[in-house]
């Protein structure tokens, strides 16, 4: 019999898994470091939850972008779409013609419209995604400024109620100086994040669509030969990304309660950075969807750390840039070490020779 066992040991972790594990370890290290350095703030569970409470929209944007990035594409319009949605929904709510549900529908509609446009142009007309989503970004920004230039606070009672609504976790919290127990609070936006993370993780791991996205990101031509509908897959990935950006806009509005030109600005860059930290490479085909929230958490922890350290506001950007730099270099070194090892590890025909011996 052929020594199958020898070949089975060859099984190694995929790049996706490896990068995901690195991302996880780095986050844990980062947070651990934060705990040790600033136990005052980071020891409180609320600080952890606030990462989500205040940045739910960023988490969501990152998720959508993650799907596109795994498929080997890019969507830089997500931040602008998010901003546009906040303003459009704010105007709808303020005009008094629509309630929360119609605002939500509007948010989904705007996101879907952008997603459909990007998807169609990129997948079926084969236009470079960067340029098309750049146009989408311009379009969303232009529409946003045309709609309303000034910040617009939503005063509609039902929405204000939703904005102020928080979920208390009775068994988790901190005792303040006066000895009063303050339970941790979660905003509804966080629930949206959790639901979407689970939904997307399932989608990418178990659905036919999700696996097709991986295949297309890995090798588009091969995916086509394997009978995958490449165009449809790419199309859907952008539609999902657009839709997610729409949802994120609504969640953003739920968090801040105001439409503003600056809403969601630079989200696309932050989301790309978060995804890279989460082990999702821009080349496509590599990455675990759960890396997206982990990367976002790492990014936010870094920011919190810098803030806690009391770094001058101008240095903050530099320090976070520097940390991103370290992170990227570390990732690339690990990947490089791995590839160079592969040459010496994979000796397929050498194994075959053993076979002819026995």
């Amino acid at each position, binding site marked *: 019999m052929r020594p199958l066992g020898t070949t089975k040991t060859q099984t190694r972790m995929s790049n996706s898994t490896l990068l995901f594990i690195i991302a996880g370890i780095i986050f844990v290290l980062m947070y651990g470091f934060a705990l040790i350095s600033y136990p005052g703030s980071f020891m409180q569970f609320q600080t952890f939850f606030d990462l989500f409470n205040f940045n739910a929209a960023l988490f969501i944007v990152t998720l959508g972008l993650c799907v596109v990035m795994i498929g080997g594409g890019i969507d830089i319009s997500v931040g602008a779409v998010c901003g546009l949605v906040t303003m459009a929904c704010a105007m709808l709510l303020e005009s008094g013609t629509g309630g929360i549900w119609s605002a939500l529908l509007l948010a989904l509609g705007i996101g879907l419209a952008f997603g459909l446009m990007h998807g169609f142009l990129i997948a079926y007309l084969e236009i470079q995604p960067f340029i098309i989503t750049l146009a989408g970004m311009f379009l969303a920004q232009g529409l946003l400024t045309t709609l309303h230039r000034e910040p617009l606070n939503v005063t509609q009672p039902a929405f204000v109620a939703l904005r102020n609504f928080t979920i208390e976790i009775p068994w988790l919290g901190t005792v303040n100086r006066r000895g009063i127990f303050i339970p941790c609070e979660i905003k509804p936006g966080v629930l949206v994040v959790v639901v979407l993370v689970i939904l997307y993780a399932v989608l990418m791991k178990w659905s036919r669509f999700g696996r097709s996205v991986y295949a297309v990101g890995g090798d588009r031509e091969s995916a086509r030969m394997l009978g995958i509908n490449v165009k449809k897959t790419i199309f859907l990935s952008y539609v999902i990304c657009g839709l997610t950006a729409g949802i994120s806009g609504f969640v953003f509005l739920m968090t801040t309660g105001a439409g503003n030109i600056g809403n969601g600005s630079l989200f696309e860059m932050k989301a790309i950075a978060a995804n890279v930290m989460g082990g999702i490479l821009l080349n496509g085909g590599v990455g675990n969807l759960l890396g997206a929230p982990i990367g976002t958490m790492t990014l936010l922890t870094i920011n919190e750390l810098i803030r806690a350290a009391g770094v001058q506001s101008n240095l903050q950007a530099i320090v976070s840039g520097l940390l991103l730099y370290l992170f990227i270099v570390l990732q690339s070194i690990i990947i490089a070490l791995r590839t160079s090892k592969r*040459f010496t590890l994979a000796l397929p025909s050498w194994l075959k020779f053993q076979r002819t011996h026995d």
Partner: protein
Amino acid sequence: MKSDVILKMEGICKSFPGVRALHNVDFTLKKGEIHALMGENGAGKSTLIKIITGVYQKDAGQIYLEGKPVHFRSPQDAQNMGIGAVFQEIALCPNLTVAENIFIGRGRDNFVNWKKMNAKAAEMLDSLGIPASPTQELASCSIAVQQMIAIARAVDMDCKILILDEPTSSLDEDEVQKLFGLMRQLKDRGVGIIFITHFIDQVYEISDRITVLRNGELVGEYQASALPQIELIAKMMGKALSDVSAIKKQAARKSDDSVPVFEARGLTSAAGVRPFDFTIEKGEVNGFAGLLGSGRSESVRAIFAADKVTGGEVKVNGKRVKIRSPLDAMRQGIGYLPEDRKGDGIIEELSVRDNIILALQVLKGFFRPLSRKQAEELAEEFIEKLDIKAPSTNTPIKSLSGGNQQKVILARWLITQPTYLILDEPTRGIDVGTKVEIQKLVLKLAEAGMSLTFISSEIDEMLRVCSRLIVMKDREIVGELTGTDLTEQDVMHMIAQGGK
């Protein structure tokens, strides 16, 4: 009788910008037959099967599947109608697992049952004797294993028609036999198999009928048993082939000055070849023999420093030199035609001219570009010398056929006038005519004083060209064979015995 025909193609035409790939080609495939599709490179075989598999759309003509006219708009379409294919270039996704690569794009399930899929894949891999685990990432499998996986996928699809385009080019003898066994089984089940290969022996071993294409046109359809080999080759080339046997190498030369052109001691590289010694004399043609993966490519890559050199010393014309990068090697007058033409050789979008002058240009240096006129003249000179079929020097190399691409790369090195030229599988995947041309060229160059190393998967080809064979096994040199009357048996024997 009529129901016997499973696939019928009539008057198929297909053109690409500037090229007429297929013109009025008919093809029929019967149930339970193995049908070899033969032709030189550029004859249109690949185009024809890409039309059958829905990768390309035909310009004109009609396809009937079991008597019904059909039209394949995409590979999925073809797959759904029961056509499976294994392509020459492995069309699998490197970032997915082995099991996924077998099952993705098939079936209508919207969700993946990993457990079931892995179990099914494991069973299949085991029954076909493929040394891979279902959960392994495809990229971590060797090329041969990947090829077997592609075959496993096609076989498992329960198809009516199976297309195998050069499936054996990266398989060893053992695996080829396994594949043939599989093909016979499928044949008995009534599957129609279209088989494309450059190994003529394999055609006769397995196929029932042969269709020959030439220059995009149908030459004819024959019973394999009624078509002698020599006639088949003649039909493929469009002329009688008398010069194959005319090639005669000269006896191993021992030059008097006895300073080898190239000499290596204990050379080894990061690609994992064991330290080896190697010399080549002026005007000598030698070769590394051994099975695929025996380290023959890795050895020549180490000589050219194509992989990172990790040890050993090198002398060129008796002088010690340091060769750390391909550029160092080129400066010492060494040229290297890589095994993987598409991945390492051609610069796809660049013109034939730029592809020809590339190495010379690099040797001249960054600040000394050839003038347009010089480049043009050089390119035209070599296009004529090597009989490269290209519409113009401006044509992108990717639109040439494989054989012509190979000649362009050969021209790229000849133009630099190397003293030592390494040819790693220069004849792989190219047509018989060009093969013979290249073999002749090698001998001519050697006669003119160039030293060459020639590697080929076909041992008879190496025996025809090389005066000395270095036999490799398990990434190390196990012996050397010289003499004019070597036979394939001698080489096989040495590989099997490990040098004793």
